[in-house]
């Protein structure tokens, strides 16, 4: 009996320490979802090896779907985390920017003909051009925020409005279709490898990010600027440039996500592509336990958060929730998260907690 109590206290101690960690939030959310699915329908977890139309081996199942479709989100979460950390605001134009970069890729690949039989340019060239374009749009957002001091969300509202229109304009409102098979590899499967390619792209992005964070001072600089701009300036940093830089980096992430998105369809639908993805990206950052008001960030937690969001989306799909209705559920999650992390609510909660603890301690005594 006594032993049991001891064990219990040890477990609670470990749990307590874990709960203090930022990454606890997405892990807890993930576990919650996993258990929910396990109870409702264990078949959620089955993964089968089958063959696709081309006769190549592919893995399928809900878990694979999560890994597959969570990729774009995870990539975006990387950039969004940096923007959030440095500026204390979010970029709501990522969906529109993905439409633009996707449109650019198709435009370069297809040339003037909207349905060419052969590629008009190597895929790598198309991708690099789209990277430059996406980074330019990121720079536009960044300039408005950093140098004109417009609130991030309002500044990015401009691109949010115009982005999909610009994307349509790039291709003259036509819907180019790429017939080359290799182009589908980025959003599908590479022959012979049963794991979806987007997962590898996301993994590559994560590795690059990890290396950048390790071998540059990006983390220190963005955090310092986000926490105390005035102090950062007195320590020789250039806060405006760093804010600007985070938006450009986000632009790069957008280009990669755009490649995956258009590769999935081999085409584009300007008004639907990456719809509402800005919401998911912001949610991923929030779910990762990062303060939306900027400052310290945990990249791993953000990326994990992205996959949790995809887990939630997939679960909702499984229960036949329509794609247009998804946003309502997610909005509720967002509101819950921001309410729980609001300083006023936290203060009240910790006061309440102390009270409960106090009475508990008295009882024990």
């Amino acid at each position: 009996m006594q032993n049991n109590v001891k064990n219990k206290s040890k477990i609670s101690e470990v749990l307590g320490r874990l709960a203090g960690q930022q990454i606890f939030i997405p892990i807890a959310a993930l576990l919650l979802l996993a258990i929910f699915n396990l109870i409702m329908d264990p078949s959620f977890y089955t993964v089968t090896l089958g063959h696709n139309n081309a006769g190549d081996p592919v893995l399928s199942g809900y878990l694979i779907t999560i890994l597959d479709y969570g990729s774009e989100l995870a990539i975006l979460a990387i950039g969004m985390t940096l923007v959030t950390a440095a500026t204390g605001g979010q970029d709501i134009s990522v969906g529109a920017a993905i439409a633009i970069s996707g449109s650019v890729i198709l435009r370069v690949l297809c040339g003037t003909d909207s349905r060419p039989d052969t590629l008009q340019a190597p895929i790598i060239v198309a991708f690099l051009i789209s990277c430059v374009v996406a980074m330019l749009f990121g720079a536009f957002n960044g300039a408005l925020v950093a140098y004109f001091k417009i609130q991030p969300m309002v500044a990015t509202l401009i691109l949010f409005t115009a982005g999909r229109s610009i994307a349509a304009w790039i291709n003259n409102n036509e819907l180019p279709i790429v017939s080359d098979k290799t182009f589908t590899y980025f959003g599908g499967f590479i022959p012979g490898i049963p794991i979806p390619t987007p997962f590898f792209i996301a993994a590559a992005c994560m590795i690059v990010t990890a290396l950048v964070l390790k071998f540059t001072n990006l983390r220190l600089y963005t955090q310092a600027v986000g926490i105390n701009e005035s102090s950062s300036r007195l320590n020789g940093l250039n806060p405006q440039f760093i804010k600007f830089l985070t938006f450009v980096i986000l632009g790069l992430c957008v280009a990669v996500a755009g490649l995956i998105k258009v590769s999935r369809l081999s085409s584009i639908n300007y008004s639907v592509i990456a719809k509402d993805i800005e919401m998911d990206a912001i949610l991923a950052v929030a779910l990762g336990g990062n303060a939306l008001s900027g400052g310290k960030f945990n990249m791993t937690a953000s990326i994990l958060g992205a996959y949790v969001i995809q887990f939630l989306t997939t679960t909702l799909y499984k229960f036949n929730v329509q794609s247009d209705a998804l946003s309502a559920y997610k909005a509720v999650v967002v509101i819950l998260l921001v309410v729980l992390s609001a300083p006023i609510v936290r203060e009240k909660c910790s006061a309440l907690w102390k009270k409960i603890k106090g009475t508990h301690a008295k009882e024990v005594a």
Partner: protein
Amino acid sequence: MKEKAVLEMKNIHKSFPGVKALQAVDFTLCEGEIHALMGENGAGKSTLIKVLTGVYGKDEGQIFLKGHDKEAVIKSPQDAQRLGISTVYQEITLCPNLSVAENMYIGRTKGAVQNWKKMNADADKILKSLDIPAKAGQQLSSCSIAIQQMVAIARAVDMDCKVLILDEPTSSLDEQEVQKLFGLMRDLRSRGVGIIFVTHFLEQVYEVCDKITVLRDGQLVGEYEIKELPRVKLVAKMLGKELDDMAEIRDAELEYKEDTSVPVLEAQGLVSDAGIKPFDFYIKKGEVNGFTGLLGSGRSECVRAIFGADKLTGGTIKKDGKPVKINKPLDAMKNGIAYLPEDRKMDGIVGDLSVRDNIILAAQVLKGFFKPFTKAEANKFADEYIRLLDIKTASADTPIKSLSGGNQQKVILARWLLTHPEYLILDEPTRGIDVGTKVDIQKLVLELASKGMSITFISSETDEMLRTCSRLIVMRDRKVVGELSGEDLTQNKIMGTIAGGEKE
């Protein structure tokens, strides 16, 4: 309650976590008097005023007002307004986007609909009676700061106040505007209003005030008639030194020696957009000098200009005799200058970051974006300085904001020492920290200087400066008014220079 007293505060206590801001402070204000509330920064003046105006609740004590038998209950600025206590703050607390008349009446009219005609007419009448050159319909932001300040006073006056608090209203006014304000104050005094006047400018106190109450370290030093307290005595009271024990013997080693070598840093006609008069400055190798003067005299602005923290609008800087350009802090850092800012919380610490990150920040920025310190290096630096400066922290990973003020200051100091500067500027490094740490920092300053570092040391506590500096630059009203070294470095002499000539 005393006769003629409009306000009596008795035995006021107020503490914040870790600080006793007010201890058993009494304060009495009579009708028709201008009463100066004096004290160094952190002495508790603003806390006392905030308690009186309901911004803070008091821990203990009573407040009595004329015409009320019972103790006055003041829980919010609105309560204070209702009881006839009006405040004009240092920063204008009006809305710049509204008209003058609206600013005078908003927040205190009854009924849902504003009668504009009447309001404008009333406002014009008051402005006229107080001789304020503004029109009721004018947008506030189109008035000069002085007029805005007066509009704030007009608002207070019209509320039929019995107690008017002026919290450093003159810091942004020029001489003419100040005279106008004083005229207004005298006028109000003759109408029987009790005025509490907080200012850093000694001349102004002697010009308009009737009485002085001095606070120090949250405690009451005393209440004096203006005639009984000459300037030098007032400065002594504020600093907590009796004139007699000021003849301190200084360390022989620190004697200022004539030195003809090229200064490590030399500035000429330096002026920044922070509103200081152009000044010249130099510092030699291994020298410790200091800027002294009351708070608001411009000492911080001077060093900020040297470091490039404020935008320079004129002047030249020479490093080791060669001219250098300092446009931003990074330029200064590259020239071996380090600056520990006055406002630790706003400009110093990066609150959520760990002690380690805070220590390596400046050195890291100097080293470059693509060359981060390895974890081992960072740990080594952090541990080294935590040990060297005896920083009390649970670990190097602890967020700096959870450290005590003194330890935070040591972390910032460590940050700059890690950059191995040739010239270190310390702006109020000892403010708000415990005595032990103060002594540590002073010792460290002397030690660093003996190793050849040039240091500028600024402190509100003159004895600290005397113990560390071999040359003092004295400032008053944003102007350099004197330089003391050698035999002249005594409390009496410093205070005399700070106070300036007595006005007849």
